[in-house]
Structures are given as structure tokens and as C-alpha cells.
């Protein structure tokens, strides 16, 4: 009977699974790892960044972002938007060119690659003949000029990438006309720069590496003027009026040249080495922009005196008498300036600089040129991320208070709005306020608004103030060195150097209802903090807790405890510490939990765990879990890998100190870094060579770090008898042991006087001895117990105390459910024994059905060491779904994963980027945005008329209209379409509206049709592109 029913139930369950679970990687938060190229489209107001790994990312207004990935795993070396269009061209390191477009699909834009092209030279030519070094996207939007290493300029028609051989500008053509007296005429070298005359689109300047610049008329195909610069060329800028060229050179000089009618006025008008005198580094890029009133802005990167400031990453801004060298935190990739006005031709308003580790935007219209806070692309890794913690559904009150305190910290930022405004963010408002907290190596905790697509910084908490550290108070970022020339100004917040690694934050726990926060760190310190809207001066009392409990034979060889400031410390508004526990030995905190209702903090290290009453500020319980035969845990630092990292860090710190103290004697950091990296790599390679073998042995109690506390959990449950529930504390260790303590908490009114007592109640030793990574108590309905204060705030159903509770112990290898109060095994799910993967991260999430509002269930979300995500049902511990998520080699990515309470999660894909994923069908935060083609674009207009299609500048949300530049043929494949063979010139408007009507009808009524449209569009992509090109030629 049962068996017959089961089949139906299973299929029903399968259907339900589809309604509950769905895996998506939705958005990447943070700053792209190793950016390599930058571009900006004034007409689209979009910013594009290419990376070393071949990704291309577009950003506009907050929330508007797109990402694409080249199939080739090659670095993006250049990105260029086609002026006035939605297309952009990328050049990769492998010399391939790629055409991308933003195509609207169902009302949302998508970034798609629509073509690729590699320049081919004549047969037998050297490869360098076609190696592209400079790209100019011509303002008419039809031509791409490609300067090559061989010195030729190839002209290619876009977007179809059709070579226009007859228009190519070969090196011979140019060389023949070079004046006899030009010393470099024998070898002009590669094309370094290509610039278009802003006034006359027929004129382009070709700058050769040797220094020579040639103004070329594209129409007449002849050289108009030769500019015989003799220094190695770095960049060329054509001033807005078209009358001057500015060239920058490798010796740190720049020259201004007048663009004359004839060949005569080739005199150098003005030449300058701005940081001259001693040898200078190259000026890699120079731009000059006029202002309505007053002097122009001159901006250039590099050019610093080689000996004294050669290691700085500077952009110099000169405006009238003001000159400042902006000193960036890492290598400058590229920069551009945004101009005011509807046509983006007004005064320069903002300087946007992409450096290796962050994006900095400087407000050029406010005095002092303050930095504009970026709403996205924020460097998460300004100090290395050491842990993260996610809190869902923050109450509005707390949210506003955190925002307010955060605002107080951001006074030095410009008040100007974010200047990059392209696209529309169509994503619905996030359903709730989510907070992501990241702990950093320098002892800071950063609060991020993780509700939506933009991971926005809200507030930064520093815990370093509580302790004495070797930090030099004068050595902060915004200090301007006095009396120095040139005037430097540090900009950016990337600062990977931690002065004391012991400050590193390891665990964070925030109670969203009470505003209590606890932060634990590397040197066994646990701070309890409270949100205060006012600044306060107070002393933080430290309580030292001895976790060894008289355990003999112990020798701690690790770091010492942090030195606590005994005098009162002034804490700014925000989270202010009021209690401090320091573990002895000061080992890294491995588990932390806070119960704000009972006012207790539980913490654990590799030696044991403790319970601290932060109301009475005393220790309630200390338990040593150490195995006396465990030498490693006895002695200190956790692993050798870490010590390598530490020594590296220390050597960096040394380098840095020497730089600070001896300004005259600079060490090339980059070289040092490379050296260190090479050494490390060699070491790693050596390790690889040794034959890898693994010992097969059952775990025993003598294994290392069996006493390490992995998880701590508070629960109000039936620990001793089935009629009375009591508060309890649970701890799980690396050796597969679970300790349960019954807590006696005095009633509210006597909470301040009477002590909290903890009494051992149970000890469970899992036979398989795998590390316990999670403990959850399930109530009578099989639902996990709510968080503290959740019920008090009416935000959760109170747990069922009638039925019997169950204990779920998650080890790295198994999920096991026990009955309570008598602990006996009820159910289990083995993971490792079956597929060899181990649980790395686990969380409890709520999954709501996408179909019915009111159905939902709890599930365990698990990330394994193989990088797979699993959802395990509760309370029956059955595997529901699994998806591959992270590469299994990406150990730090797997270790960094955090889950939200609603089936989403974050993990680091690089030191600076979080990937956001969702396992839920309901809660998916992903960019939904639309970018419309630029309005008044003559060029695209013209092309569109040729195509016979329609006017594109209307918000159209149908698939048919999503490709305004495409001719109708694809639609002909569709059965529902009317014949599209009418004369395209006859009535474009009519045709469009007809097509739209049909398409809208199709959209509304038939999803299949829609898919077919999509398919045919994609299928015919190349065909249509060819058509495009043909019609454009015609």
C-alpha cells in the first residue's frame, strides 16, 4: 500500500523541489581582480573594465552592470566603445578583436559578443606586422583604425570586421613622405597612438614609437603634416579645438605642437619636463581639457623623478596655479575625465582613475578635489578579508542607525552625486535589508549593504583602538608630507599592510535586534560592542580566561596576547566596545556565538571554549578540550603555510618601514614582490615534485587538533527531561565530540545580581570522529529554533515546545539527527563515505515556493570541499539538490563562503570580489537593467535608415525592436509574422509598429514563439551582421 503511494509522492516532491530550489550565480560584488583596461562611453555614460582573465565588465548608474567573458583565456589589453553606439571593441593579448553589444531582450539589456576578428597580414609577413598596438574607434562609428607593431595602420569596417584593404595606411606610404632630416626615418617603430581630430573626423594623427607623428587625411589618403618629435612616444592628445597636439614621452617630457594648414608650422610650440632636472619616468598618458572660463586642465600620469619618487603611482593634475600629484595605492591602469553638460562637452567634472586595486573618482569641480565615494567597485580587500558574516532582514531602526554613523565617517568625501549615470536599473527594490560584515586583517569590520546588486559600504569599525599596537599614528593615509615638492596627495583606500597580524578579525556575530556585536580575533581576543550614536570615552576592561585549566606540559610558542590600553579611549559614534575577553593561550578564535537575550557570549579556540556573561562581565564556564598528546595544538601557530604568509607580511612591513623612514633610499616594491613571489612559487613547485601519498588511517583521539572547537550553539531545549526546556550551550570539536551544558539564567529582574550557571549535561562522541561543523536543534515541527529575540520581536513563530526536539549534528562527513532529551541516533545522511566530499560550510536557510505564497521549508545549505552546493532537507536529512558551484582547487573561495537565511550566499572569487549566488527560486538578487542606444547619434541614424528599420530611441521592450540595427529577415522565419518584404523605405514607422504589435502579441501569448525568435536572432546573428555590412557599404 505504502509502496504504491510512494511513487506519486516522489514525483510530487520533485515538482516541489523545482519550485523551491534553483541555482544561479547572480552578480559579482567588489572590485575586479587584476583589471587591465578601461574605457568610457560619454554617450552611454557607461564605464568598461577589462581584466587579465578575459572578463569585461560594464558599469553605469548604481545597479546597472553587465559582465561578459571572452572564450579565450587572455588578458584584455584595450577596450573601446564605438562612439555614439552600444557596441564596444576589445583587444586581447592574443591579438584578437572582439565586438560586444548591449542587446535588449525582454526589456532588459544583455551584454553579448557578436563578432571576433584577428588581423591577417599578407602571406609570409612577420607576425608583428599585424600585432595590434593602437586602436581608434572612429567617431563616425563605422571604422576601426588598427595601428600595429609593424607600423602599419589597418582600417576595418565595423561592426562586421571587414578589412578595407584599399584604405590601409602602410608604413611605406608614411615613410616616403618623412622629411629627409628626421633622424628616426629609417625606423619609425610601432604605432603607439592613434587620435582623431575632434573637429575634422577625416584627420587622424598616427604616432610612431620613435616619436614621429603624422597627421593623415583619411579621405585623400595622404599625409597632411609631419611632427618630428625625437623622444620615444608614449601618448598623443588632440586638443578639443583641433589646433594643438600634445605628445608625452618616455623621458618624462610632454610637448605641445600646433596643427597647421601646411607642413611648415611643425615647430615645437612648448616642451616641458614637469618634474625635470633629474631623470624622470615616462608620462604614459596626457590629456588637456579646456574650461568655459579660466585655464584648462592638464592631467598626466607618470613623469615622476626616477630616483626619488619612481615607485609612486601618480597622476598630476594642473589647473591654473594649482598643481597636485595624486598618489595612488597601486599601479595606474588608465584614467579618463568626465565632462559636464548634456552633450558631455562642458567643463571637466570628474577624473576617473582605474588603478590595479581600486577605482578612484575625483571631483574636479569642488575645491580641494575631494574623492567621490564609489557606489560599486569598492575594494573589499583594502585590507585582506579574513572572515565574513551575513545578517538577513535587518530591522529598519538598526539599519538607519548604522547608516547614520557611517555617514559621519564619510565627511571627507565629495557631496557630488556619482557621475556615471548610464542605463536604467529596473531591478525591483530588494525585499529586505541585508547586511554583510567582513572582518579584515587590520582589525576592522566593514559593514556592507548587501540588499541589492551594489555592495555598498555603510560603516567601518576598527577594533585596533582598544589595543596598543606598533602602528605609527603619523603613518596614515591622508597625511600630506609638508614642505615637499611636488605636493602629493594620497588617494584611495587600498592598504594591504597590517601592522599587527594579531588584530585580524576571525569571527563576527551581530544580533540584529539588540545591536550587540561581538568580534573575535587572531590573538584570542573577543570584543563585545554596543551601538552608540554618540562618541564616548571609556576604558575597556579586559578579562583573561585561562582555557588550559591547569593542563600540564603545555608550551605556547605562538604570539603573545594583545596589549590592552588601560587609559580611557575615545570611541567615535558607532559600535563601541564595552567588554573584552582575552583567551590564554592567545590562540586564534575558531568559534563564536552571541545570545543577546541571555547576554552571553560563547567562544572557542583550539584549546577549549568558554562562556562569558557580558552583563556581569564575568566568566561563566571554561572547558578545556585539549588532548594532552596533541603536540601541535599545544605549541601554537596553526600551520606552516600561515607562517610563510606571516613572514612575507613581515618582510613587506620591513620594506614599508624603510620606505617611510628613509625617503631618499627607495626600494622597488614591485621588484621585491616579484622576487618574493618567485621564491614562493619555487618552493611550491618543489613541494609538488615530491610524490603525493595519503595515509589511510581511522581517526583517533590522538590526532592533531581534536580539541579545536569548531562550532558553538545556544538553544532553549529539552536537555535533561522531556517536560522542562532549559537554556543550553552546545560545542562541537574537531575530534567529533559534542559537549552540551545546561545553563541556569536568573530571571530578568535579578539578571544583574544573580550569576549564570552552567552545568555539564551531555557529551556525545561521534564514532566516525569527523569534525563537528554545525549543531542545530529542531523543534517539535522539525523546524530549526529561531534566533534569540526573534520571537520577542514577533518576527518568528515561537518554536513548538510540545513535540519532542531533535538535535542535528553536522560533521564534515555526516548529518546525524538525534532525539532529545535522551540522545539516540534517529536518522543520518552520509556524505563522505558515499562520494568522498566533505562539508566545508553549512547554513540553515528558508526556502519559499515560487508558486504558492504560503509554502516554504527549512533546509540545510552545504558547500563541500569539492565546491558543490547541496541542499539537505530538514528534519529528515535527505539530499534534495546539488549543484557545482566553486572550483574545488579554489580552497580560499570555498572557505570564504557564507550563506544567508534565504538561500543565497557569497564567496570570494578573488581577494577583492564576492560572487553572489542563489539557491532559492524566490530570493534572487541580480542586475536587471536596460541601456538605450544614445539619442542624437547621426551615424547610427544613418545606418539605421539604410537598414530600413526604425528609430531606436524609444523605450521598446519587445524582442523584435530590441535589435534596431537589424533588418527584418529573422522575423520571416516566424509563422506569425506578416510578410516583411515590403519596401523598407516606404514606411519605416508603419513597419515597426506592425512588427511590434505582432511581437507583443506573440510575447503575451506564446512563450514558444518567443524562444523561437530568440533562437533565430542568435542563429542569424552572423548573417544579419553581414547584411548590415553590405547595406552599409551600399
Amino acid at each position, binding site marked *: 500500500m505504502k509502496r504504491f503511494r510512494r511513487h506519486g509522492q516522489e514525483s510530487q516532491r520533485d515538482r516541489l523541489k523545482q519550485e523551491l530550489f534553483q541555482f544561479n550565480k547572480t552578480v559579482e560584488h567588489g572590485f575586479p581582480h587584476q583589471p587591465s583596461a578601461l574605457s568610457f562611453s560619454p554617450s552611454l555614460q557607461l564605464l568598461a573594465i577589462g581584466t587579465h582573465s578575459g572578463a569585461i565588465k560594464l558599469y553605469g548608474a548604481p545597479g546597472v552592470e553587465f559582465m561578459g567573458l571572452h572564450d579565450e583565456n587572455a588578458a584584455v589589453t584595450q577596450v573601446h566603445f564605438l562612439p555614439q553606439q552600444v557596441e564596444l571593441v576589445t583587444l586581447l593579448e592574443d591579438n584578437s578583436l572582439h565586438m560586444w553589444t548591449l542587446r535588449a531582450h525582454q526589456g532588459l539589456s544583455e551584454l553579448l559578443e557578436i563578432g571576433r576578428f584577428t588581423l591577417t597580414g599578407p602571406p609570409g609577413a612577420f607576425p608583428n606586422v599585424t600585432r595590434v598596438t593602437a586602436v581608434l574607434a572612429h567617431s563616425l562609428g563605422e571604422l576601426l583604425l588598427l595601428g600595429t607593431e609593424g607600423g602599419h595602420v589597418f582600417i576595418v569596417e565595423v561592426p562586421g570586421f571587414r578589412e578595407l584593404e584599399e584604405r590601409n595606411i602602410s608604413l611605406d606610404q608614411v615613410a616616403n613622405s618623412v622629411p629627409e632630416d628626421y633622424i628616426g626615418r629609417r625606423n619609425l617603430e610601432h604605432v603607439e597612438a592613434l587620435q582623431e581630430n575632434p573637429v575634422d573626423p577625416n584627420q587622424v594623427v598616427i604616432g610612431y614609437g620613435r616619436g614621429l607623428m603624422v597627421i593623415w587625411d583619411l579621405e585623400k589618403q595622404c599625409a597632411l603634416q609631419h611632427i618630428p618629435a625625437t623622444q620615444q612616444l608614449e601618448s598623443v592628445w588632440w586638443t578639443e579645438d583641433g589646433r594643438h597636439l600634445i605628445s608625452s614621452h618616455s623621458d618624462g617630457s610632454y610637448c605641445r605642437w600646433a596643427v597647421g594648414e601646411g607642413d611648415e608650422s611643425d615647430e615645437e610650440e612648448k616642451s616641458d619636463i614637469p618634474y625635470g632636472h633629474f631623470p624622470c619616468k615616462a608620462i604614459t598618458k596626457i590629456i588637456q581639457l579646456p574650461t568655459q572660463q579660466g585655464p584648462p586642465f592638464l592631467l598626466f600620469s607618470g613623469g615622476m623623478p626616477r630616483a626619488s619618487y619612481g615607485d609612486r603611482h601618480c597622476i598630476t593634475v594642473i589647473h591654473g596655479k594649482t598643481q597636485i600629484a595624486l598618489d595612488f595605492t597601486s599601479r595606474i591602469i588608465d584614467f579618463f575625465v568626465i565632462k559636464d553638460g548634456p552633450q558631455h562637452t562642458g567643463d571637466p567634472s570628474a577624473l576617473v582613475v582605474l588603478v590595479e586595486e581600486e577605482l578612484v573618482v575625483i571631483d574636479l569641480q569642488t575645491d580641494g578635489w575631494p574623492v567621490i565615494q564609489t557606489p560599486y567597485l569598492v575594494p573589499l580587500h583594502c585590507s585582506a578579508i579574513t572572515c565574513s558574516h551575513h545578517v538577513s532582514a535587518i530591522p529598519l531602526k538598526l539599519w538607519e542607525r548604522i547608516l547614520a554613523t557611517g555617514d559621519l565617517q564619510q565627511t571627507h568625501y565629495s557631496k557630488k552625486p556619482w557621475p556615471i549615470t548610464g542605463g536604467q536599473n529596473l531591478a525591483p527594490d530588494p525585499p529586505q535589508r541585508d547586511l554583510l560584515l567582513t572582518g579584515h586583517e587590520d582589525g576592522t569590520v566593514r559593514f556592507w549593504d548587501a540588499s541589492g546588486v551594489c555592495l555598498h559600504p555603510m560603516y567601518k569599525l576598527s577594533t585596533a583602538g582598544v589595543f596598543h599596537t606598533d602602528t605609527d599614528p603619523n603613518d596614515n593615509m591622508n597625511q600630506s608630507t609638508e614642505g615637499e615638492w611636488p605636493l602629493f596627495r594620497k588617494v584611495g583606500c587600498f592598504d594591504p599592510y597590517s601592522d599587527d597580524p594579531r588584530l585580524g578579525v576571525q569571527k563576527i556575530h551581530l544580533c540584529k535586534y539588540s545591536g550587540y556585536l561581538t568580534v573575535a580575533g587572531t590573538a584570542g581576543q573577543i570584543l563585545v560592542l554596543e551601538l552608540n550614536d554618540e562618541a564616548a570615552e571609556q576604558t575597556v576592561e579586559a578579562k583573561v580566561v585561562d582555557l588550559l585549566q591547569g593542563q600540564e606540559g603545555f608550551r605556547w610558542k605562538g604570539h603573545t596576547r594583545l596589549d590592552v590600553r588601560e587609559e580611557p579611549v575615545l570611541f567615535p559614534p558607532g559600535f563601541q566596545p564595552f567588554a573584552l575577553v582575552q583567551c590564554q593561550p592567545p590562540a586564534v578564535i575558531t568559534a563564536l556565538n552571541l545570545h543577546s537575550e541571555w547576554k552571553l557570549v560563547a567562544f572557542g579556540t583550539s584549546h577549549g571554549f568558554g562562556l562569558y556573561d557580558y552583563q556581569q562581565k564575568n566568566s561563566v564556564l571554561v572547558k578545556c578540550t585539549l588532548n594532552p598528546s596533541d603536540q601541535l595544538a599545544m605549541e601554537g601557530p596553526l600551520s606552516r603555510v600561515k607562517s610563510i604568509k606571516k613572514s612575507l607580511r613581515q618582510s613587506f612591513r620591513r620594506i614599508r618601514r624603510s620606505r617611510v623612514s628613509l625617503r631618499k633610499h627607495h626600494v622597488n616594491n614591485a621588484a621585491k614582490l616579484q622576487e618574493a613571489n618567485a621564491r614562493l612559487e619555487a618552493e611550491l613547485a618543489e613541494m609538488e615534485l615530491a610524490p603525493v601519498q595519503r595515509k*589511510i*588511517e*581511522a581517526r583517533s583521539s590522538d590526532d592533531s587538533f581534536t580539541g579545536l572547537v569548531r562550532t558553538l550553539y545556544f538553544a532553549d531545549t529539552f536537555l535533561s527531561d522531556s517536560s522542562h526546556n532549559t537554556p543550553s550551550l552546545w560545542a562541537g570539536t574537531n575530534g567529533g565530540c559534542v559537549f552540551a551544558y545546561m545553563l541556569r539564567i536568573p530571571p530578568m529582574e535579578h539578571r544583574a545580581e544573580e550569576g549564570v550557571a552552567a552545568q555539564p549535561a551531555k557529551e556525545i562522541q561521534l564514532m566516525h570522529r569527523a569534525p563537528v561543523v554545525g549543531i542545530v536543534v529542531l523543534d517539535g515541527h522539525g523546524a530549526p529554533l529561531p534566533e534569540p529575540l526573534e520571537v520577542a520581536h514577533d518576527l518568528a513563530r515561537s518554536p513548538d515546545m510540545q513535540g519532542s526536539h531533535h538535535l542535528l549534528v553536522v560533521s564534515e562527513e555526516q548529518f546525524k539527527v538525534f532525539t532529545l532529551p535522551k*540522545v539516540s541516533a534517529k536518522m543520518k545522511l552520509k556524505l*563522505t563515505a558515499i*562520494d568522498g566530499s566533505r562539508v566545508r560550510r553549512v547554513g540553515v536557510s528558508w526556502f519559499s515556493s515560487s508558486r504558492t505564497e504560503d509554502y516554504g521549508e527549512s533546509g540545510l545549505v552545504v558547500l563541500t570541499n569539492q565546491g558543490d552546493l547541496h541542499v539537505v532537507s530538514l528534519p529528515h536529512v535527505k539530499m534534495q539538490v546539488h549543484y557545482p558551484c566553486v572550483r574545488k582547487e579554489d580552497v580560499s573561495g570555498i572557505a570564504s563562503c557564507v550563506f544567508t537565511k534565504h538561500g543565497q550566499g557569497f564567496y570570494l572569487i578573488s581577494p577583492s570580489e564576492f560572487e553572489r549566488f542563489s539557491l532559492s527560486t524566490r530570493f534572487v538578487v541580480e542586475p536587471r537593467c536596460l541601456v538605450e542606444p544614445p539619442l542624437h547619434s547621426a551615424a547610427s541614424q544613418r545606418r539605421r535608415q539604410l537598414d530600413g528599420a526604425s528609430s531606436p530611441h524609444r523605450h521598446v521592450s519587445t524582442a523584435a525592436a530590441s535589435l534596431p540595427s537589424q533588418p527584418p529577415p529573422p522575423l520571416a522565419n516566424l509563422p506569425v509574422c506578416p510578410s516583411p518584404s515590403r519596401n523598407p523605405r516606404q514606411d519605416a514607422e508603419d513597419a515597426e509598429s506592425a512588427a511590434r504589435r505582432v511581437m507583443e502579441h506573440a510575447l503575451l501569448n506564446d512563450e514558444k514563439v518567443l524562444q523561437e525568435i530568440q533562437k533565430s536572432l542568435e542563429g542569424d546573428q552572423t548573417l544579419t551582421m553581414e547584411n548590415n555590412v553590405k547595406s552599409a557599404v551600399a
Partner: protein
Amino acid sequence: MNKNHRVPSNRSLSAVEVKSKFGAEFRRFSLDRSKPGRFDEFYGLLQHVHRIPNVELLVGYADVHGDLLPINNDDNYHKAISTASPLLRLFLQRKEEADYAAFGTDSLTRRKNTVLSAVLLRPDANRKKPPVIISLPRDFRPVSSIIDVDILPETHRRVRLYKHGQEKPLGFYIRDGSSVRVTAQGLEKVPGIFISRMVPGGLAESTGLLAVNDEVLEVNGIEVAGKSLDQVTDMMIANSHNLIITVKPANQRNNVVRGGGGGGTASGSSGRSSDSGASYYGYGSGGGGGGGGRAAPLPLPSSSAASSATPSHIIQNFPLGAELESDEDDEDLVIEAGGEAEPIRRAPSLPRYEPHLDLRRGPSPANGALPASGSGGSLSSGLPASATPSPDKAAERRSLEEDGTVITL
């Protein structure tokens, strides 16, 4: 349990006539040969027909050679039923009065002889030379076995290692490597996992069933192909209490030869291996090796109690991918706090809460203890009861280990 009674069969082929003797009383009944049922049902039946419901019994039967062999699990029970022709003679004894010396090869005939000779010829001979006490199969604890010989290709070997929470390490290492497979396209090099090292004195080495450079094909029925070294390591460790690894031995000369010439038929192989193998060690019982698989249990005299699940471990065809656990092996240890609430500061000094209790003790009787039933009392005299292996025992083990390889030849 009485279903065998309810279906009295007229056909003598399908019915087994049973004559059961307890003390001076005989009972006769019959069993269906094709549906013998389980041992515990049979045991209940015996108690029922003899009307001794609460008496613990030791069941023995006379096999075809006239040996008195024990029946104490499903396997030897089935063996007894299947070999009975036509009559199955059972001898029941009270457990507390059991004469263990009675069991063993030639025990029945020899007993007759000795009784006669004792009376007639040398009255004191028996007292001077007490017969060697040989324990029951369930008092042995297998440490390894070869299983599923009948379903595996001859080039493969499936080895089961019984950890039983003993001190002895599993004691081997694995590594990555490559092996050559024959495919439709010809020879193909594929990555594989190999045994790279044996720890001297470890369980793996002492069984003689695994060797360096053996390729590991499966772990507890799950193929390792496509899994990384770390994954396979984790799988093995997770299954370490009951590890079954299928290997392709590097040395293929020791393989079992089946079929073809040589006299042994496929069906006979089970009898050959189990009976001869078992009796070789003085098991005195073919029952230990019934079933059809091939076992090489190394009868280390067990100082610790046999796991309660032991009999079922001796032989079984391992179902691929099926749940192969015995929960008894996997039982977690729970310690409940007893007594009154203690002030927390004194709690750690409570002896019950030593940070590391001797947790190797399973829920089944602890190391060195006697079987829970206490029936093995008389056994202890003949067996060293210390948990630590004595040197002579180690020597014994070593010799047995050599034998272990011999029988696989």
C-alpha cells in the same frame, strides 16, 4: 517461526527430517529445505519443541563426516540444512553446561573411541591430555576477508578490513598513478589510485591481501574512477571502521583460477574455499564459510569480545552501492550527566567528564571484557584475556598471515 510446521511436505527431497536431542529427550520434526528460515527462528523453534523456552542453548549437529559442528548463525544453520541427508541430527546443550571440547573434527567418532579406550585401555590418558579447546567461530574475530569472489573478475580482489575499534592501525598509504586500460580504441592510459606503502605491522599488511602498487578500483562499492586522491582518502577514512576495497593486485599470480581444468567447478569453489580454508584453521566448522562467497577469516583468538555483528560479517556477497553498514559499528557514544547539579567550577574535575574518555569503547562490550552473555566464561581459561597483544600472540599472527596468502593461491 512455525511456518515450516504448517507446510508438511510429502516429498522427501524438499523436507529435512530433524532429530533433536536435548539431555535424554528426543524431538523429531521436519523443515523445508528450500525455505529454512533464519537461525533465530530455528532457535526459537527448538526451544519451543523441547518446551524449554528460557533455557539458553548451544546447538550442534552431526555433519556428513560425523563431526559435531555448531549451529549459531544463519550461515552454518543453512549449511547444516543443506548438507543434511536425509536426517539432521541435532545435539542441544545448556549453555552453562556446554562441553566445548565436544566440537571439532572427528569429535563424535573420537568421543566414542575415547570413551571406549578410556574405560578399557588407558583409564588416565584422558585426564593427562585434555583435548585442545577450540573455540566457536563466533568467538573468533575476523580481521579481513576476501569477498564476492564469485561475482568479480578474476583479476580483481575485494578485501574487507575489519577495524573493530582495535588498536592496530589500518596502515597503508595511497597515491595517484596511471594504469593502462584496454578499450575499444586500443590501450589507454587512465589515472588511477594505487597503494603506495604498507605500514609494517598494520592491519593491511598483516592480512597479506593487499600489496604495494595494487590499484584501488572501489571503496565500499563505490568506484573511485574520476575521483581525486583526496576524495578517495576521505572516502576510505570515512569507511575506516568497515573498509571494503576492491583492488586489482599488482601481482596477478595469486589469483583464484576458476573453471576450465583443475577439477574445481564453479559451484564447488565455495565449498573448497570455505570448508577447507576454515577447517585448515581448526574452525571445525564449514558453517563459517557457507553461502557461496569465499572467506579467509583469520581466526585471531579474540581477546576482546567479538562484535555482536560478527557472524553476519563472515560471509556476505557485498551488494554494490548498497548500504553496507552495521549500525552497531557506527554507534556514537553518549555520556549523560548524572546526579545533582554541580557548581561549574568543579565540573571539569568530575571523573565522568575527563576531556578524553576512553572512547574507543563501543556500545558493544568493551575491550578485554567477556561477551555480554557471559556464556563464554569457560573460554577465558584457554584464551589470553589481555587487551594488549602478547609477543607469542603476535608471532601467531604473523604465521597466520603467511597462511593467509597461502590459501588465496
